[in-house]
């Protein structure tokens, strides 16, 4: 339960509303506990004699009490439950803002679905603690104290008799609660077995079919299904007894009151009106007893969810601005890797990389899959920080640069070219909102997207994704290139950004890009030699090290890895043409 303390600062923000809500709660309850008193007076007066006018007065009193009670209950709900919604809102905003500060490695560790479920389901569970979880226990407490007070005032012994069954109610709730909880967990575990089995079956559907295993798989499923059925029935056997048992225990209290209280009336120790009022108070206590278990459940679930939220919120962002961040940067675009090594999850990805790219020059990186090419370029915009050595931009360690300014000056196009489900125009102008349509069209043309767009029915207003058109892999890549070009970066990084584009289109785009790249620093990663032939420097990475370095001509002459790659490239192109 200690986890829930983290919610206090959020609640403090709304302390006025909470206090006011509590006040309404108290006032409302104060009114409602008076109702049995009116009943008492009515019944007592009726046993003796009463005027029609007095009856009308009592009726009016009942309605008046309900009005006052209703008024305060209305505000209590709006204030107290409302606060829980405000805190939910704040909490969810904070959660999202926290996610925005996390680096890629965080998102590798956490599955998207998991984070999403924390942002909705878990925050909802925590919200329940703040709303009903606060309102009901206090309401219950107030009613219990008030009703007990009135009952004691009527007759001490009768109160003791009436509540004789109550300890059993608590014991029953507790015992059942524990066993039911355990059974329930077993059911949950069985459910996840079923889920896992179905998941496994469906993802292996081809093996199942190829080996004609539908029958045996069905049997396997039925076994799990039957066990789940059995577990559920065991729970029902217990659970079915729970509420009826509570009803019996509480009912026995009423029966006892009727018997013992009736005797007291006959013996003239209390009046009939007092007995009626007493029974009314007793029924006021019933619901809180039943709700008790429910509230406990809310707290348990809330605490568990809070723990799950804390697990995310306690992860500190790995990349943050240094306190002594430099602002006096010329932003010319000279990039240097100095003795750079990088380890990820204990594996060495880059090893002692030394490389200088002068401002305005083009560097190309080639190598096999897994050689470390993407990692190397992602160190520049600080998607990751180096494990050893330094990455410098214009002679300053990137960790000493303000992160926002650093990324401002870099246009980064990654392999998977992620687009948002917005219009094409919104996607291209993602980094610079409010760009004119001309600007958008200009960069789209450079990226070789212009002609495709003119075929779309809504041109640049065409929606991308689920609710719009599905772009081909090549179109996506070109869109993300346009997106990077629009921010006019000093440093342009293309991480295998033309892999899904056919060779002809690639040639066309490259020749247009050359004009843009001329006065910028460019880092190109490619598995196609044609993309990078004209680069000022070409490096070949192998197992995280630079194994060859030079120009296209000199590397071909070396007859090493680069030359082999180039030969294969030519072969592939030949195959493509056949």
């Amino acid at each position, binding site marked *: 339960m200690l986890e829930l303390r983290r919610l206090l600062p959020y609640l403090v923000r709304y302390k006025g509303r909470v206090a006011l809500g509590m006040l309404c709660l108290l006032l409302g309850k104060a009114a409602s506990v008076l109702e049995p008193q009116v*009943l008492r007076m009515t019944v007592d007066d009726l046993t003796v004699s009463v005027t029609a006018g007095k009856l009308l007065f009592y009726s009016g009193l009942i309605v008046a009490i309900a009005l006052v009670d209703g008024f305060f209950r209305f505000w209590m709900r709006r204030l107290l439950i409302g606060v829980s919604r405000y805190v939910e809102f704040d909490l969810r905003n904070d959660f999202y803002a926290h996610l925005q500060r996390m680096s890629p490695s965080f998102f590798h560790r956490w599955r998207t679905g998991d984070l999403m479920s924390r942002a909705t389901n878990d925050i909802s569970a925590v919200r329940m603690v703040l709303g009903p979880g606060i309102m009901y226990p206090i309401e219950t407490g107030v009613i219990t104290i008030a009703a007990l007070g009135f009952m004691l005032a009527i007759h001490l012994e009768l109160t003791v008799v009436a509540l004789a069954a109550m300890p059993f109610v608590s014991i029953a709730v507790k015992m059942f609660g524990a066993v039911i909880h355990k059974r329930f967990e077993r059911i949950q575990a069985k459910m996840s077995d079923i889920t896992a089995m*179905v998941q496994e079956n*469906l993802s292996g559907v081809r*093996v199942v079919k*190829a080996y004609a295993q539908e029958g*045996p798989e069905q049997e396997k499923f039925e076994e799990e299904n039957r066990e789940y*059925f059995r577990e559920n029935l065991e729970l029902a056997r217990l659970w079915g007894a729970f509420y009826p048992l509570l009803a019996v225990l509480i009912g026995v209290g009423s029966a006892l009151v*009727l018997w013992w209280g009736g005797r007291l009336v006959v013996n003239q120790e209390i009046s009939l009106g007092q007995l009626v009022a007493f029974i009314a108070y007793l029924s006021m206590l019933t619901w809180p007893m039943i709700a008790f278990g429910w509230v406990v459940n809310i707290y348990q679930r809330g605490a568990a969810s809070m723990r799950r939220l804390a697990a995310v919120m306690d992860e500190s962002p790995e990349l943050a601005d240094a306190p002594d961040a430099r602002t006096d940067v010329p932003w010319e675009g000279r990039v240097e890797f100095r003795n750079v090594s990088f380890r990820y999850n204990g594996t060495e990805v880059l090893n002692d990389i030394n490389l200088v790219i002068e401002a305005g020059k083009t560097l190309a990186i080639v190598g096999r899959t897994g050689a470390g090419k993407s990692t190397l370029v992602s160190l520049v915009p600080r998607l990751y920080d180096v494990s050893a050595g330094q990455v410098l931009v214009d002679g300053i360690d990137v960790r000493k640069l303000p992160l926002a300014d650093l990324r401002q000056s870099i246009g980064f196009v990654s392999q998977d070219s*992620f687009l948002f489900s917005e219009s094409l125009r919104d996607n291209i102008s993602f980094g610079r909102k409010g760009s004119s349509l001309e600007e958008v069209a200009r960069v789209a043309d450079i990226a070789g997207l212009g002609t495709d767009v003119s075929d779309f029915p809504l041109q640049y207003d065409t929606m991308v994704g689920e609710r719009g058109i599905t772009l081909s892999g090549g179109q996506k890549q070109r869109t993300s290139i346009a997106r990077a070009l629009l921010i006019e970066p000093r440093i342009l990084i293309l991480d295998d950004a033309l892999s899904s584009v056919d060779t002809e289109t690639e040639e066309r785009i490259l020749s247009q890009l050359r004009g843009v790249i001329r006065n910028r620093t460019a880092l190109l990663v490619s598995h196609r030699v044609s993309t990078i032939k004209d680069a000022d420097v070409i490096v070949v990475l192998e197992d995280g090290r630079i194994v060859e370095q030079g120009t296209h001509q000199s590397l071909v002459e070396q007859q090493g890895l680069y030359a082999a790659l180039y030969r294969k490239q030519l072969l592939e192109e030949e195959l493509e043409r056949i």
Partner: protein
Amino acid sequence: MPDYHEEELLGKAYDGRLMARLLTYLGPYRASVVAAFFLILASSVLNLVGPYLTKVAIDDYIAQGDLAGLKLIAGLYVLALLVQFVLSYLQVYVMNLTGQRIMFDMRREIFGHLQKLHPAFFDRNPVGRLVTRVTADVDALNELFTSGVVTVFGDIFMLVGIMVVLISLNWKLALVSFAVLPPLFAVSLVFKKRVRETYRRVRTRIARINAFNQESITGMEVVQLFRQEPRKFVQFSKLNREHMDANLDSILYYALFYPTVELLGATAIALIIWYGGGQILTGGLTLGALVAFIQYSERFYRPIADLTEKLNILQSAMASSERIFKLLDTEPAIIDAPRERRPVRLEGRIEFQGVWFSYQSYGDRQEPNWILKDINLQIEPGERIAVVGHTGAGKTTLTSLLLRFYDVQKGQVLLDGVDLREWNLSELRRQFGIVLQDVHLFSGTIASNIRLGSPNISDRDIAEAAANVHLDRFVARLPRGLDEEVGERGSSLSAGQKQLISFARALAHDPRVLILDEATSSVDTETELLIREALERLMVGRTSIVIAHRLSTVQKADRIVVLHKGSIREVGTHQDLLAQRGIYYRLYQLQYQDQEVTLSTDTLTPAERADSHR
């Protein structure tokens, strides 16, 4: 953000057609349903006993000072409570039993249906979504059966019962106290409508939050690189606020509704006191009856207020059943022929005759995007065929057609001269042993992954198969041998070990035709040699079709089929094709030539190998 829009939105609150179909599932359990019905009827009646006994106690015994009679009444009360306990326990149990049985039947039906569906269906429908059908959606229906439907009947019985008792006690006073019923129903109806609307709004907005989160979490890198965090945060916060606003509206309705119901209840009590009290004065009503009236009227309002809760259960059950039925109504596209053939003793001759295939369905006006174009190929029994080609040439598709994962659009595929579509489907597939690039392991032991569900494979067969593919060396190192658990999806095994397990699986099933998609993942030299030998043994005496990634495989094949852009372009042996200097020649240089180096070191002795590394 794929599913969220579709999945989270709710349909109609009530759909007669869906309900009728749902009720058919109750059919086999008619007796239990009827029993539960009478049980709830009886326990609702007993629920009414308390206030009536109070009336009798006050009027007949307390007023007369009859203590013995009072004791009797209290005793009766307790007895009624005990009977009610038994009845309602039975009712809950019977209803749960029935509900669980129905859920069991439904799960079985859904899973069974999924087993019949064609692979193309699974290409289109994400596994996670289908799993939900079997699990969460069925559970939503369970609530409808166990708590929703029946308790509504219970509530109705109780309301009717109270009305009957009140009328028999004093019909005039009863009518007076019923005066609050019309406004109560009106208020409930308005509230129901409002709450349903806000409920729908809340659900839609949480779906939007989910969709937004999914997109921005997957695209977080882009957001950060382009420094759009503030803008995205504003967008998120707006969705979050809309969600909150919908909830605040819902709070407003609840905050209005409950006090209004209470106020109407208090009005009823006030009416009873005013009118009933007047009647007592004239002797038309007893004091006990007045008290009973007040107690009954308190029990009157809760069920009406609870109806909205039930409505939510109904609504989500309708949405779930719609999704379930939609799945159940999907017809399997690949089914047995009406007069199917069963193979007796197959030879294993395979023939592709003018086969054209595209993954797009028919009906598209435009020319489909053909993956295979006019494939003609005859494979003799016992022949070894290596299929080679560049990525996307159609190699995997070719083998999928053999297993009838898909049906061809033009031409036909024949096994022993009979069109595949005429064979009995599972018998047909039984003739093939398939080893896929990605080895799929089921949770269980190594042995159970070799046997799968085939009962005719003995433990000895498994051990033999394991030994034959050299899995035994690795297994011997495990504490429990073949009975070792493989762990979640084989996470504890290396790629090579998984390969060997899938070889053993294919071998144990002793297929006529072996279809093998060689894995491209690299393994260490020792495992590579084991795999190569295991492959040899696997292919002995069977027709085999191998999508080849190993030089050794292509070299030993009887014929190499070169697929290029969906067509067979070259057929021949390794030497022939190399000599042609065509597509294969280039493919060889691209994919296989590098392996020559490793191959030559493999033939060296360990000492020499060590030498060559220096």
